[in-house]
């Protein structure tokens, strides 16, 4: 029913586009046109015999849709008898005409009662084609043959199979099956009705006299011909493969395949292993194909993901790389060009302290480093890059005006059809993800900086630890205490820092904003520490960063105050994520008790 509605809606839209008709005018025109829609459909015999030409896949793939059939596929065509009468079919012959430039009939078989006699006479000669009887419907198969007006004529390029069966008992259903090998008939060939039923005769000999199903009672229904322009004979299996970070749910992104700028697929999402099979959508060597990356996350969900991607340790690492962290031992903490590109917030291929401060501003909630080109936050923050480019994008290349690899959500692809299996490999980066918490890992040595301290004395935890739903590779673990209580009629959440040598700290806490109102955040982190707090949609983002050589003091460093008429604080405030960094800007895990 929905398809019918969509069909009429498309016609309405068409009338509106062409003639600018209003809603009521379109309805009236549609009503007047309604009887015409029936003329294109074949009519059933009603209470006679319907002969159906059924496409049933290929010999290699029974489920292959007709529109995906390629040259050199062998298609299966069934002749289906639907006996709507009270009679018995003891004799049937159906003529199947086909164009030999487009199809070669390579095999046939019968499915008839035991002891039935069958034959498939091929009429070829110098070519044979039915000239229809114009006085009867084309699908009135017995009338086409038995009355005057139609005949077979010599036409090169056409042949006819005379598919016949005789039985003492009833013949019904799929009584015969033909196999056709698909051929390339050339660009100028018309593939319309290149396989078609031309005529049929059906009788019942069970009585004392032969009963011939009369004119009008043997009809081609509901399909009597096949029209299909075959696709190229491309045998490559084509895959899109993603190498992704475990903190990123790859099944939430996918691609739309575009052919010459027009989508030819729905949203195809990566499976859990990071793969998509796009074979059925890339069917030509001469057309241009692109992959448009998409996500099933809505904008709010994507923003929540970015809340985990861009955190204070991305800032501290960037500040240190640019000598702005204030704790000495500056620079050489980035190892790849991917990191440089991720934090080049003004996209000028020149990483400056301003880029680091933009990133800090983003984390503090005062600056948005994600561009807004009107296409949405996903398009402007997600960076799919072909794997080879990703792994070889070095700091040297970034700094020396080498053309940056395509990191947009639209990627042209060129398939090598000489390979039986072709895979286009991608890796994913994120804007602002300096520490690579959610970006794909850079593999190999092509992109690595030989001067980076990571190759010398910087060590992180050898195995990632789970911290608030993320796998975190960190330089250490620090301790803190967290609690929520009712104090003087307000709900107060307190973070007590127990560890020293902490130079940056960030906490994102969710609260029930249907019950509570965020009042303020109070810091006790030290005189030279920069603190920040902001609130959006039930989430408070608060943190501190020390850039003057000192460290964040221990004790009750954060207190977050909420007001609300409650007597129980249980569950009202929860921790969304945490982040922290040491004097080198490297990430620390905050272990809360």
């Amino acid at each position, binding site marked *: 029913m929905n398809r019918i509605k969509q069909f009429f809606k498309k016609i309405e839209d068409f009338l509106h586009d062409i003639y600018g008709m209003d809603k009521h005018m379109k309805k009236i025109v549609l009503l007047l046109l309604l009887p015409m829609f029936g003329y294109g459909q074949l009519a059933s015999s009603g209470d006679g015999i319907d002969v159906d030409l059924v496409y049933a896949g290929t010999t290699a793939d029974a489920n292959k849709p007709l529109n995906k059939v390629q040259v050199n596929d062998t298609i299966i065509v069934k002749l289906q008898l639907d006996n709507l009468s009270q009679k018995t079919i003891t004799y049937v012959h159906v003529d199947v005409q086909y164009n030999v430039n487009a199809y070669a009939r390579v095999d046939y078989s019968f499915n008839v009662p035991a002891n039935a006699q069958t034959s498939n006479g091929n009429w070829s000669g110098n070519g044979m084609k039915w000239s229809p009887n114009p006085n009867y419907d084309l699908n009135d198969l017995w009338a086409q043959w038995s009355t005057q007006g139609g005949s077979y004529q010599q036409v090169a390029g056409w042949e006819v199979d005379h598919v016949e069966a005789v039985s003492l008992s009833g013949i019904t259903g799929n009584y015969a099956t033909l196999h056709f090998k698909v051929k390339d008939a050339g660009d100028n060939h018309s593939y319309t009705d290149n396989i078609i039923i031309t005529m049929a005769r059906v009788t019942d000999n069970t009585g004392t006299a032969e009963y011939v199903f009369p004119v009008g009672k043997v009809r081609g229904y509901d399909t009597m011909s096949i029209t299909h322009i075959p696709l190229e004979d491309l045998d490559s299996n084509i895959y899109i493969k993603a190498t992704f970070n475990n903190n990123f749910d790859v099944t939430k992104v996918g691609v739309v395949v575009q052919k010459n700028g027009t989508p030819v697929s729905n949203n195809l999402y990566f499976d859990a292993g990071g793969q998509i099979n796009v074979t059925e959508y890339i069917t030509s060597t001469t057309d241009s194909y692109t992959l448009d990356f998409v996500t099933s996350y809505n904008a709010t969900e994507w923003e929540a993901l970015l809340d985990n991607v861009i955190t204070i340790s991305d800032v501290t690492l960037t500040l240190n790389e640019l000598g702005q962290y204030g704790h000495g031992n500056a620079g050489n903490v980035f190892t790849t060009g991917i990191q440089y590109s991720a934090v080049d917030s003004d996209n000028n291929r020149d990483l400056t302290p301003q880029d680091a401060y933009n990133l800090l501003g983003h984390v503090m909630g005062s600056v948005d480093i994600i561009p807004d080109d009107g296409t949405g936050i996903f398009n402007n923050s997600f960076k799919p890059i072909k794997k080879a480019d990703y792994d070889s994008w070095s700091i040297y290349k970034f700094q020396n005006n080498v053309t940056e690899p395509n990191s947009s959500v639209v990627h042209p692809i060129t398939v090598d059809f000489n390979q039986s299996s072709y895979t286009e490999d991608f890796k994913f980066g994120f804007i602002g993800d300096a520490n690579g918490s959610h970006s794909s890992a850079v593999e190999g040595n092509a992109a690595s900086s030989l001067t980076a301290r990571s190759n010398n004395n910087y060590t992180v935890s050898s195995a990632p630890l789970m911290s608030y739903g993320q796998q975190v590779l960190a330089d250490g673990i620090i301790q803190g205490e967290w*609690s929520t209580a009712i104090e003087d009629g307000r709900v107060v959440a307190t973070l007590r820092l127990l560890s020293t040598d902490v130079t940056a700290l960030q906490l994102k806490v*969710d609260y029930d904003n249907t019950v509570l109102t965020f009042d303020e955040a109070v810091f006790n982190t030290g005189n030279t520490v920069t603190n920040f707090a902001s609130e959006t949609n039930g989430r408070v983002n608060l943190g501190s960063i020390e850039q003057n050589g000192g460290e964040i003091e221990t004790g009750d460093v954060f207190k977050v105050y909420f007001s609300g008429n409650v007597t129980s604080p249980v569950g009202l405030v929860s921790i969304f994520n945490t982040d922290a960094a040491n004097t080198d800007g490297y990430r620390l895990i905050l272990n*809360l008790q």
Partner: protein
Amino acid sequence: MSYNFQKWYYFWLFVLFLACSKDDYSDFQTLSPNLADNMSIEEPTGLKFQGSNITDGSKFNLKVLEAGEYSIEVRDYFKNLTSKSIINAQSGDNVFKFYTRALQDGDYTITIGKDGQEIHNVKLVIK
């Protein structure tokens, strides 16, 4: 009585008859008016939740012998502390609301403690 009068008379009588019939609320579960009875704990101490899952605004009873501050920790599957609340409990039954809107749905471990000592530890689904 005229026919017209009788027609309206019986119509309104029928309406009145329907209106005064006993309401059938068999499809609705009747909740006990005394919720505290459902939450009661017979033993001297204990922890009881209103349902098998914790939903927003559902209640729990913490029965203790000693009055004072008790902590309620909520930890996720990876033992990360997600929420920790401090409540003041009286000796005996203490029924509190459990809010869940700020928590993501999932399996959690709920731990009740006092002065750093664990008193109760249960695994529950928060919805």
